[in-house]
């Protein structure tokens, strides 16, 4: 335990007393301190400490990499800090907040997120249909499963090029040709705001439908066969059996799948950055891609951090409400 204290002391003074050229030594002392803390647990508490040792490393890891940056982010969110200028950081109080209120593109990106999240319902319907089809008695099940899974595995940036840049190319991309054959004279997928937004939604859906499909499929396979037989004996036809037996049984799984999908959707950025970089006129911007460009263009860390912090607060509130809501609708029926 003495060792721990010594390391802790070094951790506190490491950067203040000796002038290191960067803060790396602090990182090393933190790691040493963490190891000492784990070791100290075992020495002090014996058997009990050994149990703590299971969780402690992960906890220390997560705390150092999230809680600390978050606190740090809170400080820099209220400062004007342009990384490329030599002035360094200067506290500017609520200036950033005022700037944020007046930033139409940020709120526009927020609004876009709502649309993107709403698109999940359509994804869910398609995923459910596919899961039902996969769960039926079919041949070549393995082939279909692999084929359906593949979009999820591919890197979104490569996918953006493959689909967004190549297949949707207005002059000779195959999908554009298909559109032309179906009577759409000028198949430009990123020209008008709504079409561009829908295109991004479809590309994102292409990647993530397999994810929801697999979760729903797992849920379908967990439903006992007897239930379907019982429904059949009771004279329910396929459609009614689905709505009155399968669907209610699937409600908890569906909610889990949708919630997780929403979480992933809120992080959506790479496709947007790679394909449209927000355009036309910010119509396809997500909050993440907007902050990314904001940083790229002006390299103002302070303002970007404030935007991200506000986004986090909005997300936490929205997710808490959603989870409460989800709990309420899933409880009475199951």
């Amino acid at each position, binding site marked *: 335990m003495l060792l721990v204290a010594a390391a802790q002391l070094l951790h506190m003074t490491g950067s203040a007393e000796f002038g290191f050229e960067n803060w790396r030594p602090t990182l090393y002392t933190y790691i040493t301190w963490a190891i000492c803390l784990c070791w100290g647990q075992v020495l002090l508490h014996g058997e009990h400490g050994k149990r703590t040792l299971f969780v402690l490393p992960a906890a220390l890891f997560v705390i150092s990499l999230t809680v600390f940056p978050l606190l740090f982010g809170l400080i820099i969110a209220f400062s004007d800090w342009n990384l490329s200028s030599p002035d360094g950081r200067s506290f500017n109080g609520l200036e950033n907040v005022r700037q944020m209120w007046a930033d139409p593109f940020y709120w526009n990106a927020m609004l876009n997120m709502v649309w993107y999240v709403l698109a999940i319902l359509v994804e869910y319907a398609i995923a459910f249909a596919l899961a039902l089809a996969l769960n039926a008695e079919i041949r070549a099940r393995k082939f279909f499963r692999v084929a359906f899974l593949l979009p999820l595995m591919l890197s979104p940036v490569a996918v953006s090029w493959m689909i967004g840049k190549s297949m949707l190319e207005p002059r000779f991309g195959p999908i554009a040709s298909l559109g032309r054959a179906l009577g759409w004279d000028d198949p430009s997928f990123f020209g008008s705001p709504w079409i561009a937004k829908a295109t991004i939604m479809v590309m994102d859906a292409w990647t993530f439908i397999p994810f929801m499909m697999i979760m729903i499929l797992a849920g379908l396979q967990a439903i006992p066969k007897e239930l379907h037989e019982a429904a059949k004996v009771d004279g329910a036809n396929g459609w009614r059996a689905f709505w009155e037996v399968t669907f209610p049984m699937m409600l908890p799984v569906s909610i889990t799948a949708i919630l997780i999908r929403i979480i992933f959707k809120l992080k959506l950025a790479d496709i947007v950055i790679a394909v449209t970089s927000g355009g036309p006129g910010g119509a396809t911007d997500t909050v993440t891609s907007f902050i*990314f460009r904001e940083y790229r263009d002006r390299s103002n860390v302070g303002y970007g951090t404030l935007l991200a912090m506000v986004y986090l607060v909005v997300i936490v509130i929205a997710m808490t409400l959603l989870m409460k809501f989800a709990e309420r609708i899933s409880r009475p029926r199951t």
Partner: protein
Amino acid sequence: MTQTQIFHDSPADRAHRVKWFSGRLAVYTLLILWAIICLFPIYWTLTTSFKMAPDVMKGNMVPWVDFTPKWLGWKSLGLSPDTWGAESTVRAEFLKRFANSAIIAVTSSVLAVALGSLAAYGLSRFSYKFAWMRNSDISFFFLSQLILPPVVLALPMLVLYKELALLDTRIGLILLYTLSVLPIVIWIMRDQFSSIPTELEEAALVDGLSIWGAFVTIILPIALPGMVAAFILSLVLTWNEYFFAALLTSTHSNTLPVMVASQTGSQGISWWSMAALAWAAIFPLIIIGVVLERYIIKGMAAGAVK
């Protein structure tokens, strides 16, 4: 049941069969249609990488039938048969990015599975009390990291990494990637461990093994499939990650997705070489997907059914 229904097709039976067939047809149409939607972009990219400019412009699709495949795209990457021996800066660049991606993805997945399995095991077996936090609070703390959007961490991390001299290093990315997949690993592994009966360890403890001895010798081998699933899922996620990589790396340690994205802007017209690059970036994942599909599905299904 009467005899007529068994030996003769009553009209009701025939109607039933028609219905059965049309149902079958609908299911297969849906499946095949979706399979085409899933596979066509991959096929399109692969064929484009073998096309010449006029073939791309005409939108030709079937090799040997309406265009002759050429190694054009792969040659520009230095990966075609006739350029194998020659020096190629593009290939060196590509291989460096590939190696970066591979090292970062594998290391962070190993780290995440190690840390995550330990934590998940602890949380599923013992009861803890850190200050006011009990087991469920600790689990929630870990899983809530999923909600945290990466953009919130990105800019503070950028500044911190600059101070720590971790900017544009592999270690920096590895740490962040480990963090981002840790909640998923913990989720999968907690599910895995709670499906193993506790009697197993109790017996091991009676036999004189310590807690850690029992964990390593008895529980780990049983939980191996779950760990493989978690590992592969992390591997896929970290291999594909773009946002942090684009922000925190510049020349020395950037990954394959960053290379793909930067090429899109700079040489957007040379379709064949972009197609070759994109295909090379997704190829390892296609292999993983085809070979290890079982584990991936298992991993993703873990949380769905409780």
